[in-house]
């Protein structure tokens, strides 16, 4: 009974997302460019999905708009500007490099560099510390004496 409920709820959840297959576009070239462009863009409704993959209504509408722009012969940059001027840099999965995104782009490298510097400093410091020195002749004699005392150990 429990399994049945589970299956039923899964079926309901699944069918809630399902929609009719949209007809294949008449122009495969347009469609290919659309996919290439929209895969680089975020769907604002389901933010972890790309515009190419999202089934949200807004994504459908936006793909329709982009298709039209492609048919009008707009360049990739013009299409990008169309999207950014409406939804901001957030729609781009690769945000542009500008002062506000410097931390985002350079942060990881700065952290890595800091780590490397810290490592080098640490290693140099350890190198300078006196290491273990060899035993003196006197100490060697003591070791021998101790070993002789307990030969079975």
């Amino acid at each position, binding site marked *: 009974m429990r399994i049945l409920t589970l299956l039923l709820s899964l079926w309901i959840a699944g069918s809630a997302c399902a929609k009719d297959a949209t007809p294949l576009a008449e122009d495969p070239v347009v469609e290919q460019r659309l996919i290439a462009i929209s895969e680089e863009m975020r769907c604002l409704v389901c933010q972890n999905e790309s515009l190419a993959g999202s089934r949200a209504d*807004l994504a459908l509408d936006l793909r329709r708009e982009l298709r039209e722009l492609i048919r009008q012969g707009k360049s990739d940059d013009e299409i990008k500007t169309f999207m950014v001027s*409406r939804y901001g840099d957030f729609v781009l999965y690769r945000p542009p490099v500008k002062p506000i995104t410097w931390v985002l782009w350079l942060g990881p490298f700065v952290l890595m560099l800091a780590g490397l510097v810290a490592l080098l400093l640490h290693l140099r410091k350890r190198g300078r510390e006196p290491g273990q020195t060899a035993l003196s002749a006197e100490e060697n004699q003591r070791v021998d004496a101790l070993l002789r005392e307990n030969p079975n150990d």
Partner: protein
Amino acid sequence: MKAKFLVPLLLFFALVGFLAVGLKLDPHEVPSPLINKPSPAFKVPQLAQPEAMFSPEDVKGKVWILNVWASWCVACREEHPMLVELGRSQVAPLIGLDYKDKRQDALGLLQRQGNPYVLSAVDVDGRVGIDYGVYGVPETYVIDKQGIIRYKQIGPITRETLEKTIYPLVEKLKKS
């Protein structure tokens, strides 16, 4: 030198600080690039009189408020009382944009719950919405006398946003 053992602890607090701030941020609220930009032009039929058109040109020279709504939008019902209040206050013309809706449903909702709008424009296919960067209904824009967007509210208007943000802003814009 003695304080060295405190370093991991301080790093831990810094991390906690970042996470605490991150928790408070709402990733669904994306700052609009349209703030301080001219409101996009459009010309679409009105909801109540489909033969009449509405364009932002019609309200140019006035501070006005554009509220994007739809009868299918659950969060819109939540903010509806606030809109009624905003409409009644008559601080600025409140124009609705009925977004991707069925005309009958939209009219029915206004009849049942009251119509806070001076008029509603109809965006049947969502094109006006795209030009305004709408991605989650309801959204509300405050537009100044020169037709510049000064504020965008994503999600329902609450009493707090109404009293602390929208009313003061409208008053300020009216004076300028």
